[in-house]
């Protein structure tokens, strides 16, 4: 994973990056880098690639859990608000109906659940991804401009214990990576 701050690393490099021509090659390269013992790395692709995150050792996606919690909070909050309004804050007798007429509160409770869940899906995804982030070292590589268009990249980061600039660069070249380059911090 790439989220550790590597600013203090003595080499002053973020890592070594190589370019791959297709998603299949990138996935294969990631598997081999992982098998070779590299752990601090990240792969970049202009499309979501199946199995790519798993190939670099990503296991737990917590977005769904956050959304579940938010949905439960939305239900409790929504229903709680309506009960509080109608039973405690502003008890209002309408034609002798019970103050706690909960079936009528379901639509608003449902909307509160959806609203909170959807906002949490956005916010938790961004927060766990560390976005918004105005600067990142990978953008220092000129060819990386195409990472959002048609090229696929693997970057082994300098914070990895196994990282040795020259060795890692040679290793990436051996995986079939083109344009192996050092990423300045």
């Amino acid at each position, binding site marked *: 994973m790439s989220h550790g701050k590597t600013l203090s690393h003595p080499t002053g490099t973020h890592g070594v990056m190589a370019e791959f021509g297709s998603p299949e090659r990138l996935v294969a*390269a990631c598997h081999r880098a992982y*098998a070779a013992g590299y752990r601090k790395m990240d*792969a*970049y692709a202009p499309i979501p690639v199946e199995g790519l995150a798993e190939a*670099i050792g990503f296991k737990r996606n917590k977005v769904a859990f956050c959304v579940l919690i938010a949905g439960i909070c939305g239900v409790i909050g929504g229903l709680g608000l309506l009960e509080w309004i109608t039973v405690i804050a502003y008890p209002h007798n309408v034609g002798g109906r019970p103050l706690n007429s909960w079936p009528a509160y379901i639509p*608003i409770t449902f909307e509160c659940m*959806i609203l909170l869940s959807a906002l949490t899906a956005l916010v938790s995804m961004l927060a766990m991804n560390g976005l918004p982030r105005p600067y990142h070292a990978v953008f220092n590589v000129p060819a*990386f401009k195409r990472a959002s*268009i*048609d090229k696929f990249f693997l970057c082994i980061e300098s914070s990895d214990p196994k990282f040795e600039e020259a060795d890692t660069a040679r290793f990436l070249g051996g995986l079939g990576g083109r344009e192996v380059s050092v990423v300045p911090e």
Partner: protein
Amino acid sequence: METTEKADYQKLPERLIPDPGPDSILGPGHDYDSVTRRIAGIVYLPLKNSPKKWLVGAFIAFCFVNLLMLAVGWLFLKGTGIWGINIPIGWGFAIINFVWWIGIGHAGTLISAVLFLLKQDWRTSINRFSEAMTLFAVACAGMFPILHLGRPWLAYWLFPYPNSMALWPQPRSPLEWDVFAVSTYGTVSLVFWYVGLLPDLASMRDGAPHLWQRKIYGILALGWRGSAIHWHRYQKAYLLLAGLATPLVLSVHTIVSFDFAISVIPGWHTTIFPPYFVAGAVYSGFAMVLTLIIPLRSWYNMRDLITLRHIEAASKLMLGVGLIVAYGYGMEAFFAWYSGDKYESFMYWNRMTGPYGFTYVLLILCNILLPQALWSRKVRHNLVLVWIISIIVNIGMWLERFVIVVTSLHRDFLPSSWGIYIPSKWDWATYAGTLGFFMFLIFLFVRALPSISIFEVREVVHHESHGEHLEPVGEEA
């Protein structure tokens, strides 16, 4: 390199790009780079080289935006008395247009969320555009109930908040449910749209020919860099949003139908309203999608991105949903007769033969009879006919709301409280104004953001060119 890239975006492709036909969702010869350039190129195109039709269309729409300003300004000064509403017909155009607009929004969510969950590949090129349509339609819809309040500047009273009057809104009322449903729908549609846009904004940032464009798209892209782990969370979030938007879209029009169904007015008080309203919403939404994408793909020479496959699939869905709507009409008439309730049966007879009988006849013609032409493959492949039918359905669905709102209210239980509703020029001005507002936003959207999801089209390219196999792990690539 920089200069050639700049030159590339000066003009749209000059030769006419052919449609690959009804079996293909993407024209031949595309790779990741070419689809990016084609879709982003529409946005990078200098304003002076925009199609003339865009300029003329945007100008006309802008004139109508001004008409809306005028109509709303006058309404703020004079109050709802400038409209044709009266007692008993208190709802008039404001509610007709509210229901119509929000219905149009529904197809956007259906295309982007429901078809995503069902893994329909043809949604890809039209989902972004439909989501934008949803947002703008909800914006138009949201205006009407607020303008109808009488004192629109006090609209915030609708929300529960601690206030010095020690009053709270009534959460047992469907009108209060509406507040939550519509505001949630607008917010979730915006979130869904923005999440879908995020990777494309990064592409726009990285390919932009000018620094100012890179800055704007850079800010909007939030520093997206396509990391595998980011994509993983992104896809999960997108899937969840689709899963949340699907029941949401059903709930919204259900709640809108409760505004009617929970009352005791003959013609409104029926259990068929929720499903029938949802079907009607999707019907009008697909009609609006077709009305917009058929000219758009021709103006911007995108026949290889939005193909006959998309148009045919949307037409078939429109036809199918239209039949559900027809069933709804049939059931309404059946209930009126079978209930044995004299008010119900009078209401239905009056709806067909009373002062507004012509609207009912037109409604059946526009919504049920004419769209049956879509059964024919020849008609579905004739874009001019599909476009005309889509407009007819839009008109028909608007008439449906007119019929439901006006004919039910104007002949109530007591003949002494019967009345007639004639919309005033300010009703028409407000309605035409929101049409212009909607179209103007669509015109701006096409110029400012990628109107087709770039990364999803790249996925289509990937699936079509490479197949879906991954090379065996550990072998030299």
